[in-house]
């Protein structure tokens, strides 16, 4: 066994990079629209060339994001149906047990941390949080982009409700990324200052052993 393991394929790394870039653009052009009456938001909107322009950029980025999401989910379903995909991100009963075990360990009520497989419960939470969040912002975004079409078969109140849900879901996604993702990928003492795995695709065997012991043991068993 070499000193590193390839954890992410090139496609997965490109997907992460695309989502990261689009998410940043969507947050920069989106949150100021939600908080447009505060000074910082106004400065960003006017600094980037006015409301009409940032709205255009937000919509273009949103359409791209929708495309990436649709492609990702299509490939996911396709790979599961053809049996070539991995189900390693599907939440299981074990994840809930792991979460409880982990919290007990943090609190000093358990002697050892939970032992994780390919994805731990925090990573699964973030992945599915992104997927469900994406579904909500895409659905509400479509209503906001095509209000005439949406109200042809939905009540008019769907438009202001979508506007509120779109902004709040975006705000929550932003806060989760700022608090949780930045901590886990950068600030956590386990990875500080920068967990490069999603960019290089590689994870050291030492970290594998520490963070994904079940997967490590399985790979080792297969090699022997």
């Amino acid at each position, binding site marked *: 066994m070499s000193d590193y393991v390839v954890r992410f394929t090139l496609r997965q790394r490109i997907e992460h990079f695309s989502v990261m870039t689009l998410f940043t653009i969507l947050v920069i052009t989106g949150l100021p629209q939600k908080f447009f009456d505060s000074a910082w938001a106004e400065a960003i909107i006017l600094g980037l060339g*006015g*409301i009409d322009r940032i709205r255009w950029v937000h919509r273009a980025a949103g359409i791209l994001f929708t495309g990436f999401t649709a492609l990702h989910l299509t490939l996911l379903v396709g790979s599961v149906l053809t049996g070539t995909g991995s189900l390693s991100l599907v939440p299981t009963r074990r994840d809930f047990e792991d979460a409880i075990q982990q919290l007990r360990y943090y609190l000093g009520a358990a002697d050892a941390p939970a032992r994780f497989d390919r994805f731990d419960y925090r990573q699964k939470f973030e992945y599915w949080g992104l997927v469900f969040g994406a579904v909500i912002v895409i659905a509400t975004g479509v209503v906001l982009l095509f*209000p005439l079409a949406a109200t*042809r078969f939905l009540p008019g109140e769907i438009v202001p409700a979508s506007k*509120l849900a779109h902004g709040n*879901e975006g705000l*929550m996604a932003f806060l989760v990324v700022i*608090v*949780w993702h930045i901590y886990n990928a950068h600030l956590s003492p386990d990875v500080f200052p920068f967990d490069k795995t999603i960019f290089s695709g590689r994870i050291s065997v030492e970290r594998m052993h520490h963070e994904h012991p079940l997967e490590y043991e399985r790979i080792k068993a297969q090699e022997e």
Partner: protein
Amino acid sequence: MLHSLFAPLLVALALQAPPQASSNADQIGMCLSCHGEPGMAVTLPSGEARSLAVDRGAFARSVHGGKLACTDCHSGMAEIPHQARPFKTRREFTIAYNEACKRCHFANYSKTLDSVHQGAVVRGDVTAPVCVDCHGSHDITPPDRPRTRISQTCAACHEGVSNTYARSVHGRALTADNNADVPTCTDCHRAHDVAGPHAPGWRLRSPELCGACHASEPMMKKYGISTEVMRTYVADFHGMTASLQKKREVEGGAVVALCIDCHGVHDIMKADEKGSAVMQANLLRTCQRCHPGATQNFSSAWLSHYEPTFDKAPMVYAVRVGYLVLIPFMIGGLVLQILLHLWRVVVNR
């Protein structure tokens, strides 16, 4: 008083030179010895008759009565008979005498230079109003007494729009109740630096005109109108876009509905009144002016200036409450787990 010196000097030969304090009255008396004749007139080269008669009583009752002498405005009249004047038409005569006002009323005169009327003058439109067209000449009285007089003055030229205004909620209150709060023409268009919808930035600034009264709590209280109309408008898509476009101070950008686009301008009605563009039965047609193809559901996307309460908009209310609970719960839980993790790292060391 330099300008009023010539006539008294001339008159001094015929009359005993009066003391300065009564010189105005004496001079006026002398001028009116000819110009007080009701039929006095000249025929101009255009063929128009131009009355040269002055109503003594009307001048005495005017704002200038007792204050000004004839030559304060009519300079160059020292010789009798007066020198021939070069005016070919009545209008040339009027426009030339407009210059007399600015010697005292310079501030208002310079405001008129920025007016839409002056713009017409510059383009060569001799019918565009000058001071005396609105204020009168020898019979000038305060233009806003009574207040209904303001719109009547404008109506002399702007008859159509004035009739429309008179039928509006504002115009009716002005004429029927002599209401002192409702806007007359000059409250929105201003008096001397008169501007209209073609002025740069006028459209995007127009909500401020409405807000000047409709965001005023003490004034709106009298009529039982909510002052939340401005805030609920700005909180919505149209209002947010318009307020940000205005701050950018660049013309252009996507056209969005302002107050006047739904409620009308000179024809504003009460929102629940028959014929109002924003009453429920007409709302869809009003939306369709900008959103062709809109269906009945579309117009109810606008919450009619209401706060999204449980009663008025249960779906929006539910989304608001849902996220109000979800976001702190979610972020609080994640922060808690981060703190526990850090605590464990510290303890393990």
